């Protein structure tokens, strides 16, 4: 089976979602879509943390609100076990704080549960290709988190490049990706790559920030 998957370059997806009906709907959606395979579906973070490493999925769809360990903590722990894992958060409401915390924990994007099925599939495809969507609100939070940082060790500090700052600023002003691309005379794919890089930096940054906070207390 696994070799068969690899041959067809199947995207292996695992689900962590506590609502049975939504989870089953998502399983149906993934299994019914070309190129996707659902390798695991878990109603809670505890099961997911135990089983996901053995299933080696490419992407994990993670509900933010889970009973017990929440999706944000689960993301953090999974990223420690499998640093290259792509985690996308699932949420009913666009709660900027929770989404931002998830991104700091290592998620590379988020999807609203209400998103049209076709859009969910295309978003998953984009993510595997290196895309990382970001809203204006999140862009603003990212910029602020890099600016209002407690002064820690200079050599460990992760900073945003001027180009990255530019992109975030335009995003927070309401520019769409293609508008950013034409404004900065770069391709939309480059914009996406920058955003992915920003996500990675955000995670590293939040880790060092946590260390600084830890050392201070």
């Amino acid at each position, binding site marked *: 089976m696994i070799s068969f998957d690899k041959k067809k370059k199947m995207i292996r997806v695992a689900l962590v979602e506590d609502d049975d*009906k*939504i989870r089953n*709907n998502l399983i149906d959606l993934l299994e019914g879509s070309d190129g996707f395979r659902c390798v695991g579906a878990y109603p809670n973070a505890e099961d997911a943390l135990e089983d996901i490493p053995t299933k080696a999925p490419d992407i994990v769809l993670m509900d933010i609100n889970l009973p017990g360990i929440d999706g944000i903590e689960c993301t953090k722990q999974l990223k420690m076990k499998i640093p290259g894992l792509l985690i996308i958060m699932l949420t009913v409401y666009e709660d900027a704080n929770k989404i931002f915390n998830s991104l700091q924990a290592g998620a590379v994007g988020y999807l609203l549960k209400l998103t049209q099925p076709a859009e969910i599939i295309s978003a998953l495809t984009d993510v595997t290709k290196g895309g990382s969507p970001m809203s204006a609100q999140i862009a603003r939070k990212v910029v602020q988190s890099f600016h209002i940082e407690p002064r820690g060790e200079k050599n460990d500090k992760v900073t945003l490049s001027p180009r990255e700052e530019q992109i975030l600023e335009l995003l927070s002003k*309401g520019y769409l990706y293609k508008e950013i691309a034409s404004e900065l005379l770069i391709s939309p794919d480059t914009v996406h790559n920058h955003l992915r890089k920003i996500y990675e930096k955000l995670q590293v940054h939040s880790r060092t920030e946590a260390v600084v906070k830890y050392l201070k207390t």
Partner: protein
Amino acid sequence: MITTRSFTYSLLFCLAFLANLAYAEQKPFTQVGGWEYRWGDSPLTTNGKLAWLSDSDNTQAWLPVNKPSDIPIIPGKKDLWIRLHLENHDETNSAIFANRIEKIFEVYLDTSRIYNFGKFTSGEKIPMMGFAWHLIKLPENSNGKTLFFRIRSDSKYIGVYGKIRFGSEESFLSEIIKANLSKTILGIIFVFAGLVFTIILLFIGKIKPYLGIIIFMTASGIWTLANSNLTQILFYAPRVIYYADHLALFASAVGFFMLVVEIIDPKYKTIFTRIYQFLTGYLLVVLFLDITGISDNIDTVAPFLIFTTLTVIVLIYYIFQSARKGNHEAKILLVALAVYALFTLLDIINYFQNVVINLDTYEMQFAHYGGFTFLVFIAWIFITRYIEMNKQMIDAQVNERVRIAQDLHDEVGPRLTEIRMVSESFKESGSLTEREKIKLEELSEASDRVVSTLGEIVWALNPTNDTLEEFGSYLSQSAINFLQKANIKCRIDIPPLFPNEKISYEVRRNIIMAVKESLNNIVKHADASLVTMQLRGTKTDLLVSIVDDGCGFDITNTRKYGNGLKNIERRIKSINGSYSIDTKFNAGTRIKMEVPLQINTAFTQTGYFPNDI
């Protein structure tokens, strides 16, 4: 907010000022020496005159004494005479001031009666007269004449307890006013405050926890007024004043212990409840005895004083225990009692100086001020308690709000998502007619709208979103999302960081709705290609302006545009904000809203929570 220290200092300063006022210089003097007294009543001469008034009556029966208040108390005595030969009498001292003479008495100058309090009728029971002070005018040419006091009482005590002093009438009156003004004002304030509080609390319908403080306040006020010599000038009814003094003393103790029950550690509540119930019973018994006149010969105050002194010692012990355990209120109470004790100590010191050293009489002065200081401390405890209670209520409200938000979020959201998913999967099945597909699409969109509206409510309900920064970025994002769907370019002009200020729920909710309405108008009517939303925040205000490059409209054509605009205006006005619109045909529209971050919700009519913070 007044700090504890400055509050205490200013209070002590005020009291020192009042005490100074009360102890102004006293000009009248007490005649020492030359007094004589004699037990019994004078027989009548053949022509019906009092035999002892005649000059010739110089028997050994008259005993010399320094001052009338030095006359020993001998139980069982009913009549007492006192006399003083006025030698070298200064005529400017036109009056005698006497107080605490028990009970009915007459004053004679030689053979003529110049003053009487009550009437002498032989054989009848002596009626209760009450306590009064007496300002007795001396006729001209009194020098060389003899002054007689004829006193009768059937109570245990007989005699002159206060001073008999000589002075001018004006000096006595000004002295009374000076010495009693502050007391009288304090008494009036406290009676008045007690009544006002009673009325207010009756209206609020929450009188029980404050009944003790009201009774204590009113009764202490009445007690002080009854003890003020000024009262008698304004209201001459010695008997009424006597009863008021008597009963107010007991009532203030009842109030005091009721108050104690409200503020003391709950485990001691029962014992102090019993105490105030017992005292209430005692008060009623005394009231009965006073009305029937039985109490005239019984000392009802002494047992009461002994009882309350003992209970106060127990109380202090309990409070001390609570204070040691770190109870903040107990500490304040201890300070209050200490201040009370300090004032009482001043009285005791003065008592020793006046009575023991100067062999004079003395009236309690400072205890009244002590009682008031104590009350101020108690009021302080109550006020802090009230503030704390209000804070807890607001906290409870916030918690409730978070709970509702959480429930909406956890329960309703996923179910709506499910509706959306099920209808989508139906659409995929392929066996539907076009019409059915359209209906299903409508169903999906409806649940989408419900979820996004719910999302807004949940967002606004969440107290962690009450900062200007959170609100500003949320508002920007929702404008971007809304305009993106309508294919209109959106630009946000937002400061890098807002001031770290809170914005109240009502303001958030109404601004969200007003912006939504404005954007909706643009999408529907303006035919715009670019919308710029500008957000600016200060420490007190939020400014939102929305500019489009659309067709604009004729602002006078209210029939067409009036309703939506009125809605926006109403919302902005309800949160005390200002709203302006600037538009010209084919030249775009600019809407400006300026609102305060916090509003006094008592004056607004809209909003989900009337007591928003």
